[in-house]
């Protein structure tokens, strides 16, 4: 059954731009600690432009990766998938997921699209790139450390960040394949405080 659902999602995801439903409520000013204060325009795997404030309104898991990453990034993505999978047992919608590339020079929207396809990422995943300044600033607010170590490789922190609907960091999971229950708790808490009123049926 889940396979079927997944297949459906994938099918949809391959052919349509991911939905970007704006928050249905009238949001106040962003909280002081929201990372969505960061300026700049980003581009996703479908070549669509977006700014961070557009991500407001949904609880999100976010991680920084790059497409030519041989080991760590696939594991980060796997960890995000397993958090999502666990969540969907209780919250069928799961969460929205964002991947930001460290390597905007290499990672064109096409490369991001390719990664999404390889990884069978459904439309809830947005893979985005900005310029190197934006990447640096986003890494700075998230506390992600990274360094280019060769023409193709980066050393980087392995961090999965839980953002509440306003883009405030509510939890960070560090390491690969680590215990994920605290991330899940954080997402559920964020879902409870954001989505139950306005997103309900």
């Amino acid at each position, binding site marked *: 059954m889940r396979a079927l659902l997944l297949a*459906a*999602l994938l099918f*949809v995801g391959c*052919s*349509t731009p991911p*939905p970007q*439903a704006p928050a249905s409520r009238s949001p106040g000013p962003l909280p002081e600690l929201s990372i969505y204060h960061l300026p700049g325009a980003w581009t996703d795997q479908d070549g669509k432009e977006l700014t961070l404030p557009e991500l407001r309104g949904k609880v999100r898991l976010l991680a920084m990766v790059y497409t030519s990453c041989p080991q760590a990034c696939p594991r980060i993505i796997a960890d995000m998938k397993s958090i999502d999978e666990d969540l*969907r047992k*209780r*919250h*069928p*919608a*799961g969460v929205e997921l964002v991947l930001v590339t460290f390597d905007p020079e290499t990672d064109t929207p096409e490369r991001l699209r390719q990664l999404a396809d390889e990884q069978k990422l459904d*439309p809830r995943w947005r893979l985005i790139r900005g310029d190197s300044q934006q990447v640096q600033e986003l890494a700075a607010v998230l506390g992600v450390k990274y360094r280019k170590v060769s023409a193709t490789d980066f050393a980087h922190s392995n961090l999965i960040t839980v953002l509440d609907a306003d883009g405030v960091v509510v939890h960070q999971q560090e390491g690969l394949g680590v215990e994920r229950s605290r991330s*899940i*708790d954080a997402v*559920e*808490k964020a*879902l*409870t405080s954001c*989505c*139950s009123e306005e*997103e*309900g*049926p």
Partner: protein
Amino acid sequence: MKRTITALLLSSLLAGCSSPPTPSASPSPAGALPEEVAVLTSAPEVPPPITRKHSAKVSVKLEVSEVESELAPGVTYTFWTFGGEVPGKFIRIREGDEVEFHLQNRPDSKMPHNIDLHAVTGPGGGAAASFTAPGHESVFSFKALNPGLYVYHCATAPVGMHIANGMYGLILVEPVGGLPKVDREFYVMQSEFYTEGAHGEPGLQPFSMEKALDENPDYVVFNGKVDGFGGDQAQVVKVGETVRLYVGNGGPNLVSSFHVIGEIFDTVYIEGGTTKNKHVQSTLVPAGGSAIVDFKVEAPGTLVLVDHSIFRAFNKGALGKLKVEGPENPLVYSGKQADVVYMAEGSTIQRIPGSRAPVGKPTANKEERIARGEIVYKRNCVACHGQEGKGVPKVFPPLAGSDFLTSPEVAVSAVVNGLSGEIKVNGETYNNVMPNLQLSDEDAASVVTFVLNSWGNKGGDVSPKTIARVRVK
């Protein structure tokens, strides 16, 4: 069409958002523990023993600060501290406690710091989790799984320098059921300092990395400075009290040969663990390690804490003082009682004119004499005649069941006048010297009474008057 499917799917997915929260937010069993804030003390004070019979969630708040203060008279140093002083605050918790640790780095600190508690089971002892920039606070939690006395220290790179500047202290994890009760407890921590200037060179002394690498300190001290446990910091205890020292060694390099001049440790919890050793003179305390030592103070005077790697004590500062106040107890310790010419085997005993037998408090009856006599015996007689009065075959005659002691007078004479030449005891011939022990009448009467009433001997009571009569004037 596809768009519609998406929308449909989405709406169903979104509906999931509104499902009621799961009860995962309810408190875990751990959350049910009673909460308390740990009492922290500066050396030489130790927080009071833990009396509760259950685990608790203990909040520990430790502030890191960088302060300039005295290392030795006229010499100052910029110490990096846990709690404003060296050594860091003493933390006392109980086995099974869940500790919420707050490491606060003062805004006026120049350095980031962290803490590695040897009592923590987990990566880095909390070091990575507690890495804290100036003006920030880190919080992490751990469960105290193992009882014992543990060192904590800063583990920020360069680790050696952070420790060399004073960043260490002790955390005691009391075992369930607690440690045996004692009258007094003190916190003593040894460490060494490496300064640009030589020992004693006045003024603010910077850290010398060369000397630290060579492990050649200018100062080896207790409690962070010369006379840190002594001088005006000297602690006073009373005769008869039981004393426990929580001894740590911050290093950074040296292993301590910890010793208290004038005491024997009745009990040493080796390396701060659970294994007890009895009757110990000196105990090794590794850098980054500890020991718990218990002893009962029996006689007044000043006990001197030293690192018995002795040049450290007398030349670099590793001296501490514990004053013991109370009435003299000559049975335990007499002061000098005799200074006799040492004669080789077979020669006669001589007394140096002018030396006097000390006077003890009079005993009132046989029981008191037996009790007092036992102490006198242990101090004066055990070496030759043995704990059980069995002597040493062919060298020192037995006192237990001895047929030589035909009357109390024989024993008294031997004690107060000495004895030399050939004697026969229980069929065995002995030819040795029994020195005149220079005991007071009281002590002599007591020890003879004790011997007559021990090990199956036939009893009796010798009064001090008898002694005076028998003593060769």
